[in-house]
């Protein structure tokens, strides 16, 4: 069907488009506009040029600290999650008893929402730290590693599923041929499994990167930024800037635009990476 009468085209697309324009498109354009103004509601904005963007950095160090914290967190999480997930995927593709049951167990935390996850780990981490007379709000380092552990618990099973799909897609003949040629387990892993699951590694790396960068619920419930705002990640810092004090809405919106550019950059990098690996294969 190359053509469709206009009234049918409208019937199929308008419900989605109206909701999209109302819930996303107008708020997006309005949000970009408001980042250049001073406002407390959407109707009382006054043009302020780029001052919000300057003040996002100059007013206090919160935004810069949050950026550093987020980048560090993202790097550590991406590395740990992918190593653990890949390791588990290797263990669970050896035709072991109860493989499906194990997959079910490892994946389950991924379904539990961020707020609930945060409070589960708050109990456990504080339960350990109490033996040393402190709790998670004592230092941002505890908050950092708490978030890393939490994120691993949530994401490892998910990434494992993607790696398992990648490993199972390797033709068994190739592995068998390598065995016949006398390749050791490590050689097979390095020269066959790794290169052939490269697309899955790309997907998982960027998926964990994007999720780590955008983390909000877990951050709010586990540390709420404590002590002070030291363990605030970018999303939480933007939220606190918006709703913490009156008169900072414009700065919050400017921070949100910068945050959006960070995320867009990650996605663009991912597209380039996956295009490149598609061309090579």
């Amino acid at each position, binding site marked *: *069907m*190359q053509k469709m009468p206009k009234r*049918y*085209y409208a*019937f*199929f*697309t308008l*419900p*989605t488009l109206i*909701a*999209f*324009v*109302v*819930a*996303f*498109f107008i*708020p*997006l354009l*309005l*949000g970009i506009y408001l980042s250049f103004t001073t406002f407390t509601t*959407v109707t009382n904005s006054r043009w302020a040029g780029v001052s919000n963007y300057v003040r996002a950095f100059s007013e206090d160090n919160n935004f810069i600290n949050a950026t550093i914290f987020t980048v560090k967190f993202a790097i550590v999480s991406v590395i740990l999650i992918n190593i653990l997930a890949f390791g*588990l995927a290797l*263990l669970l593709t*050896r035709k072991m008893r109860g493989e499906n*049951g*194990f997959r*079910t167990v*490892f*994946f*389950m*935390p991924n*379904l*539990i*929402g*961020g*707020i*609930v996850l945060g*409070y*589960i*780990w708050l*109990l*456990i981490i504080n339960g350990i730290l*109490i033996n040393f007379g402190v709790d998670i709000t004592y230092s941002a380092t505890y908050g950092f590693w708490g978030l890393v552990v939490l994120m691993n618990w949530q994401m490892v*099973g*998910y990434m494992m*599923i*993607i790696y398992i*799909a990648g490993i199972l897609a390797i033709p068994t003949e190739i592995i068998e041929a390598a065995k016949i040629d006398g390749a050791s387990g490590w050689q097979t892993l390095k020269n066959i499994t790794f290169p052939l699951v490269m697309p899955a590694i790309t*997907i998982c790396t960027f998926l964990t990167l994007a999720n780590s960068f*955008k983390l909000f*619920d877990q951050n*709010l*419930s586990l540390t709420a930024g404590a002590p002070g705002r030291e363990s605030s990640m970018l*999303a939480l810092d933007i*939220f606190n800037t918006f709703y913490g004090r009156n008169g900072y*809405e414009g700065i919050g919106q400017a921070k*949100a*635009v910068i*945050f*959006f550019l960070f995320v867009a950059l990650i996605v663009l990098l991912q597209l380039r990476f996956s295009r490149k690996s598609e061309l090579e294969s």
Partner: protein
Amino acid sequence: MKKSIRENIVYILVLFLAILFLSPIFIVFMNSFKGRFFISDTPFALPNAQTFVGLENYTSGIVKTGFLPALGYSLFITIFSVGTIVLFTSMTAWCITRVKSRLSSFIYYLLVFSMIVPFQMVMFTMSKMANILHLDNPIGIIVLYLGFGAGLSVFIFSGFIKTIPREIEEAATIDGCNPIQTFFLIVFPILRPIAITVAILNTMWIWNDYLLPYLTIGSNYKTIPIAVQYLQGGYGSKDMGAMMALLVLAIIPIVIFYLTSQKHIIKGVAAGAVKG
């Protein structure tokens, strides 16, 4: 012989990891039966005669947060939003994939672009917009979820529709079906497997979503994540017992959902990741 010893060691290692993975949930479950003052100090101790309080935490947690209405709102919002998203985005995806025009590709790229925009970018303006248009209630929020979720869902549906041969649809048109009949009688049944994927991805998102409902309907209608967060922030000295009970109550629906449709969930999530 040597091989089987190695396999057994691997098996025990994986089993140990699996138990480690489940232990946080078990610890919360165990603490939900302990008195509120025994939880923070000794979370790893089993309940004993002194600390066991039966279902007291559950009753106080349910009463304090209004858990039952929260469960109702969460179920209502999730079920109807997911249904609406699956219906309308599949219609849109089919239309703009089959009708090749400038408008179609403009709509497609606009929707796909929305996937990369983080929620913080629009949270303030969206909640104001919802307020002005009176979408700040459990029915109106369905419109917001449709609008914000359209990108990913249309993207996944379009990818699938491109792989379906057109001949079946063309035959239906020749037989006198109009586009609406063609879509609902012929195309929609074919979309079933991918519709399940879309439904699962959106269920996971909407059921667990905190910030969007908190900013738009949170003061009048608490969903489960809002109720949990409310318990933390709302009281001077927080009631750890009620919190543990509420965490267990929040996890139960997810576990039921997971165990009844885990095959679809794992497949759907893997498929969604590869495309998203």
